[in-house]
């Protein structure tokens, strides 16, 4: 079962998407669609192969290209793909999508292959232990109601219990469901009210949703969720200096790879990294940076720097208030 195979090549996909459902196409449209679905330079290679005597998939007639292939053309699944499907059927989250009977039937349909992996092949050693309960029928019902509403662009009436056990009732337009791998939980990304002047994104933990009722009110198009998310980012990024000791640079670059960031070398052993973030991840980012110890120093923005300093001051005071832990700098300088 080969992953790096031409069967999954981008050009194959581009051609498949061109021929399915349409038996003729103009050269202009062909051009446009290759540019939209191929790699940046695919057009240079693909266009002559499709319009001239190349691969012969099209015949030119009266300014149009007529496909010799069927509009019902399909590519069956490979064993690798079937094997992947069997693997995801073993994940505990699959019950959010399929009944036990459906899972069994799909397994039977792919009886000729083994799962590509078993859940037990992986161990997420620092995943939080209080993940969502995917077997809970109420949770499952809420999950499915949200998916249906996202597809229909339908408002939902949600009763929510906040972290401080306050119950709040609001109308939300659900836009996306966010899965956190670390927390092993789902959150709903929703816009509270699209009619408001400045609607903003709200993030609701699925496990805290008490009741959901569809409102039978829909809108034509979901708002641009990325626009809302980006607007929630602070104007000023966190600026950190990374000392490349104890492999800190590589560790930091990997750990912060899921943030939008920009890094540059400022001298022989120091790098400057700008990390873009929003209020909701501020504490998480703060403790991630603290976990690097002295290898990482926050130099901006001012409010984030203040948070770091407050924590350090508090720690310094805690240590010095204990009589047995006099903080003598000489004791530690020679240790490596």
């Amino acid at each position, binding site marked *: 079962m080969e992953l790096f195979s031409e069967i999954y090549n981008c050009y*194959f996909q581009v051609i498949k998407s061109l021929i399915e459902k349409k038996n003729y196409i103009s050269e202009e449209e062909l051009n446009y669609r290759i540019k939209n679905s191929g790699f940046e330079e695919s057009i240079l290679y693909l266009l002559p192969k499709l319009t001239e005597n190349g691969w012969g998939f099209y015949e030119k007639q009266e300014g149009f290209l007529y496909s010799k292939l069927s509009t019902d053309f399909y590519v069956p699944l490979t064993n690798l793909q079937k094997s992947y499907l069997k693997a995801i059927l073993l994940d505990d989250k699959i019950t959010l999508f399929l009944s036990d009977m459906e899972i069994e039937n799909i397994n039977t349909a792919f009886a000729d292959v083994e799962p590509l992996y078993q859940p037990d092949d992986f161990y997420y*050693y620092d995943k939080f232990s209080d993940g969502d309960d995917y077997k809970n029928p109420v949770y499952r019902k809420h999950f499915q109601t949200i998916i249906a509403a996202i597809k229909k662009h339908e408002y939902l009436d949600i009763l929510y219990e906040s972290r401080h056990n306050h119950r709040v009732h609001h109308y939300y337009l659900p836009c996306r469901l966010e899965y956190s791998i670390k927390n092993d939980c789902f959150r709903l990304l929703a816009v509270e009210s699209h009619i408001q002047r400045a609607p903003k994104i709200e993030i609701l933990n699925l496990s805290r949703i008490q009741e959901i009722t569809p409102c039978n009110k829909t809108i034509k198009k979901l708002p641009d969720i990325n626009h809302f998310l980006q607007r929630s980012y602070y104007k000023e990024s966190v600026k950190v200096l990374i000392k490349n000791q104890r492999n800190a640079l590589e560790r930091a*670059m990997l750990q912060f790879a899921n943030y939008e960031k920009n890094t540059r070398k400022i001298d022989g052993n120091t790098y400057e990294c700008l990390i873009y973030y929003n209020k909701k991840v501020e504490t998480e980012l703060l*403790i991630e940076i603290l976990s690097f110890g002295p290898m990482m120093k926050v130099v901006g923005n001012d409010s984030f720097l203040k948070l770091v300093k407050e924590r350090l001051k508090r720690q310094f005071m805690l240590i010095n208030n204990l009589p047995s832990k006099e903080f003598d700098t000489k004791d530690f300088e020679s240790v490596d």
Partner: protein
Amino acid sequence: MSEFKELMKTFSKSREYVRDFFVYGFKTREEFSGWSSRTYDNERRRLESWLSEYVKQDYTKKGKNIYLSIDSNLLDTNPLYQVWKAKSFTDNDIMLHFYILDYLQKFKERTADEITDGILTEYDMVFELQMVRRKCNEYTKDGMLTKKKSGKQVLYKINPPFQEILCKYPGLEDAIKLFQIFSPLGIVGNTIMENTSFKNDIFRIKHNFFAYTLEDEILISILQAIHEEKTVLITSKSTRSENIRQIEGVPLKIFVSTRTGRRFLCLYITNKKRFSSIRMDAIKKVQIKGNYSNYRKIKEGFERNKASAWGISFQGSSAVRLEHLKLTLHIDEDSDLYILNRLKREGKGGTIRRIAKNTFTYEIDVYDANEMLPWIRTFIGRLLDIESNNKRLNTFFQRDFLAMYKMYFEE
């Protein structure tokens, strides 16, 4: 000078370039060691071609700096999957792919002879019989066609479209939308989405590390060895020193960190009789060797040991088998109860006790308490005491804390 191609024959060299561009995002041509300027230019141009949407550039004193800027919270799929879709192919590969599959959709079961003739009649294209037969056999092995004997004839048939299954079980389509973006080998799910022409318009993923996909080919070989209970010979290159080394062992499990973006292969080193781990992104090659007869017994022992590993280490620096750690924390019971929740959900079953008002202890026994240091530092501002029979741990913490304090308040 050879012509630039955005497709490639082998994956390994591009894997390292993409990883470096994605993870570091700041290396200029001069900083990539080991390869010529021409190689750098070609690899950079390929990367720009595959991932044009995410490539940014700026100018530094050292020259043009291109980098990948990807915010995983804003994406419906992993953009690095593109690199798996850049395998080069021949004209015959692509033509036979479309002609054979299309012909068998129209004409059901056919022999290689009939398919060869049919391609000429239907599409006006000539191919050698051997070439058609070879491609049909290849696609049978890949699972797209089925082969059956009828007398002396071998008939090929196209397998049914996946769409039929999706129509029966629409929930499966939504499941693929989710799993393709975060599950192990999610690239395969992504190819299913492309094949069946749907996109993820429902899910987003938090705490996702896109660079994992660059190890997926290596991962498939390791999983195969795990399932077949075989030993492997691993060739790896140190991420720090660039030294190449080989190690033979029994692969047991993939350890994944949801925080640090690192994945490890845990294996049993037979000649040293101990468990060890290797960074997945350091593995360059996997050779599957023979069966390991004691696999089940070793695996059982490993699962027992795993419970006392904080991270990936099965051996500490001190003489004792398990190292004890006790943290004493100041937690305001009126306003900071979420810190207690953190200890519960992140503390791997360690014991939490309230010893006085606003004062709690957390205790655990692990193989290597040094692995806990980054986590302990996340409680800076609340730590009253750290006690451990690993003496270096407390010293390390205090030394680092002092250095941090000086860094912010004295420099």
